[in-house]
C-alpha cells in the first residue's frame, strides 16, 4: 500500500466536489437488493453503501453475485425486489439522468470487431444523447490516450489482444468526465504492467473526485487500490466497511511449532489463552495456535513460560490479521463455485 491512508480519501479529494453530492453522501446505496432467476437466488437482499469519493472494492469469488448486482445497479436487469439509489437518484426510474454520469465496464469489454478502436468509441459515444458531437473527436482521442491506446486507434478491434480490448473498455468508461465509475474486473487479461497502470489510473481518477466501484475476485488487487470494500459470498454481503475496519475483525494469533504439543497447550491455557493444535503430516511438527484476542500478553512472556515448562520450541510467531485470511474465512477456500 503506497497510499497515505487507506481509510479516508486523499486530503485534496475532500475539498473537491464529489459528483455534485455532499461529502459523506453515498454514491451507491441499495436496500435489500435481491435477484432471483427462477428458484435460484443470485443476489439475496444486499445493502450496499458506497461513500462518495471512495475507491470501493466489491470482492467475492466467481459466481458470488457481483456481476448480477452490477447489472441491477446499471439498469440492465430488473431487481426482483429491493431499492437502488445511484448518485442520489433512484434506479432504474431515473436511468436517463443517472447513467450519463456513470462510466461502466461490465463483464468484460465488448466491441464491434470489424470497426477500429476509434470508430468503436465514437459509436458508443453516439448512444449517449447528452454527448456532444462537437467534442466527440477530442474526447475519444483523450480517452484513448489515457489508456495508452493512441497508437492502435486505427486498428480493427478484431485484431486487438484481450488486454487491449480491456483498455479500450476502460477508455469507453472515460469518454465523459464521470461522477461514478463502475469497473467489473478491470484487470482481467492484463499483464502485470497493465494491472499497475489500471491501479494508478484508478487512483488518479479518485484524486479527481470520481467515486470508483471496482469488482474483483482478487484480494490483492482490492488491497492495493481500494479505501473501502464489501465481500460477497453466495449472493450476500458478508462484510463491508473501510479496509482498516475489515482487517480489525481478524485476530492476532500466536503460533508455536513444537513436538511437545500437549505441554504447550497446557502452558498457553495457563496463560488464559485458548490454544488449538492443528493436525500435521508425518514428518512435520505440530503447530499450536492460540488467538491473542485483545490480550496484552507479551510474546516474550509466552516464550519464557513455554521454555520454563520444558517445551521444545522449534518455531514461534505472532501473526497479524490479514485480509486474506478474513476473505478466505468469509468466502471459503478452493474451487467450489457457489451455487
Amino acid at each position: 500500500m503506497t497510499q497515505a491512508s487507506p481509510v479516508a480519501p486523499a486530503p485534496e479529494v475532500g475539498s473537491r466536489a464529489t459528483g455534485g453530492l455532499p461529502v459523506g453522501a453515498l454514491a451507491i446505496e441499495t436496500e435489500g437488493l435481491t435477484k432471483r432467476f427462477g428458484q435460484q437466488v443470485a443476489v439475496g437482499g444486499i445493502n450496499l453503501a458506497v461513500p462518495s469519493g471512495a475507491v470501493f472494492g466489491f470482492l467475492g469469488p466467481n459466481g458470488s453475485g457481483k456481476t448480477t448486482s452490477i447489472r441491477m445497479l446499471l439498469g440492465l436487469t430488473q431487481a426482483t425486489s429491493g431499492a437502488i439509489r445511484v448518485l442520489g437518484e433512484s434506479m432504474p426510474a431515473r436511468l436517463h439522468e443517472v447513467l450519463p454520469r456513470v462510466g461502466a465496464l461490465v463483464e468484460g469489454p465488448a466491441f464491434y470487431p470489424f470497426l477500429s478502436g476509434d470508430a468503436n468509441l465514437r459509436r458508443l459515444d453516439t448512444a449517449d444523447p447528452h454527448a456532444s458531437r462537437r467534442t466527440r473527436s477530442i474526447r475519444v482521442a483523450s480517452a484513448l490516450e489515457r489508456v495508452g491506446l493512441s497508437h492502435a486507434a486505427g486498428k480493427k478491434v478484431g485484431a486487438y489482444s484481450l488486454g487491449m480490448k480491456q483498455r479500450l473498455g476502460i477508455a469507453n468508461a472515460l469518454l465523459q468526465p464521470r461522477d461514478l465509475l463502475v469497473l467489473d474486473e478491470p484487470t482481467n487479461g492484463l499483464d502485470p504492467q497493465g494491472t499497475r497502470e489500471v491501479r494508478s489510473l484508478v487512483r488518479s481518477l479518485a484524486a479527481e473526485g470520481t467515486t470508483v466501484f471496482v469488482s474483483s475476485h482478487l484480494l490483492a488487487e482490492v488491497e492495493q487500490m481500494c479505501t473501502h470494500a464489501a465481500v460477497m459470498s453466495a449472493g450476500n454481503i458478508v462484510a463491508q466497511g473501510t479496509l482498516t475496519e475489515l482487517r480489525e475483525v481478524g485476530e492476532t494469533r500466536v503460533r508455536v511449532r513444537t513436538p511437545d504439543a500437549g505441554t504447550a497447550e497446557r502452558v498457553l491455557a495457563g496463560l488464559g489463552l485458548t490454544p488449538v493444535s492443528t493436525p500435521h503430516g508425518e514428518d512435520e511438527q505440530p503447530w499450536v495456535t492460540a488467538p491473542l484476542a485483545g490480550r496484552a500478553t507479551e510474546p516474550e512472556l509466552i516464550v519464557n513460560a513455554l521454555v520454563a515448562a520444558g517445551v521444545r520450541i522449534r518455531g514461534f510467531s505472532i501473526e497479524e490479521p490479514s485480509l486474506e485470511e478474513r476473505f478466505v474465512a468469509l468466502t471459503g477456500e478452493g474451487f467450489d463455485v457457489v451455487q
Partner: protein
Amino acid sequence: MSSSDLAVKPARRTGARRGLGLDLLGSELSVLFRRRRTWAMLVAVALIPILLAVAVRLSSDALAPGEGPPFLDRVTQNGLFTGFTAMVVAIPLFLPLTIGVVAGDTIAGEAGQGTLRYLLVAPAGRVRLLLVKYIGAAAFSLVATLTLMLAGILIGVALFPVGPVTLLSGDVISVPESLLRSLLVASYVTVSLLGLSAIGLFISTLTDVPVGAMAATIVVSVVAQILDVLPQLSWLHPWLFSHYWLGFAELLSQPLDFTSFGANALVQAAYIAVFGALAYSRFATKDILS
C-alpha cells in the same frame, strides 16, 4: 496510461440538452453500411438482374410470351424491363432473405456481441434503440430494392435495345416515365418488406443468438408465402404480409392504379404496429444478461 491529467476535460454537461438520437441513427446507418456482410448482400442483389439479363442475351431461342417469370419475354425487346423482371424473381426468396439477415441481427446481434449492454449503459434508451434499429432495417430494404432496380436498368440498357415501353395495358410510355415507374415499383417493394422487418425486429429481441433470429425471420416469410397459396386458407390471405408482394404489376398499367399499393401499405402498417408493440413490450423489460 498516463496518470497525469493530459486529457482535455470539456465542461461538465448541463444535463438540459438531450439529443433526439440522430447521432445514434447516423452511427447505426454507418455501421450497417460499412459492414462487409451488407455489401456482400447488396452485390448479390445486384447480380440477380445481371445474371438474368446475361442468360437471356446468350440464349438464342426467343421466349414465347408468358413463358418464364413475368415480363421475361419483354426483356429482349426493351432493356428497361430487366429491373421489373429481376424484382419478380427476387421478391419471394432473395429479398426476404437479406431482410431476415439485417432485421434478425438488429438486437440479437448486439446482444450476442455484448455491445448491447454498453449501448444501454451509455444510455441509448431502449425505445430509442429499437426505433433506430428498425429505421436501419427499413433503410436497408430501400437500398436493396433500389440497388436491384438500378442494376437491372443499367444492365438492360447495356445489353438490350431501349425505347418507349409498352405497358401491360397496351399503352406506350416514354423512357423518362418508365424510369419513374421503376422508382414506384422499388418503393412498392420497399414498403412490402417493412412488415417482415418488424417481425424480424421482434424475433431479434427474443434471443441472444443472431443466426437464430435471422433463420426464424426467413422461415416466417417462407411460411407466409406457403399459406398464401393454400386455397383452403383464402380468408387468411389478405392478412398475410406477403399477400401483396407481387402486386406491383398494376403500377405498370395505364392509368396508374394504386389500389394494391394502398392495400399493401395498410397491411404492412398493421404488421409494424403489432410487431413493433410486441418488440417494445418484450425489450423494455428484458433482462440484459449477454
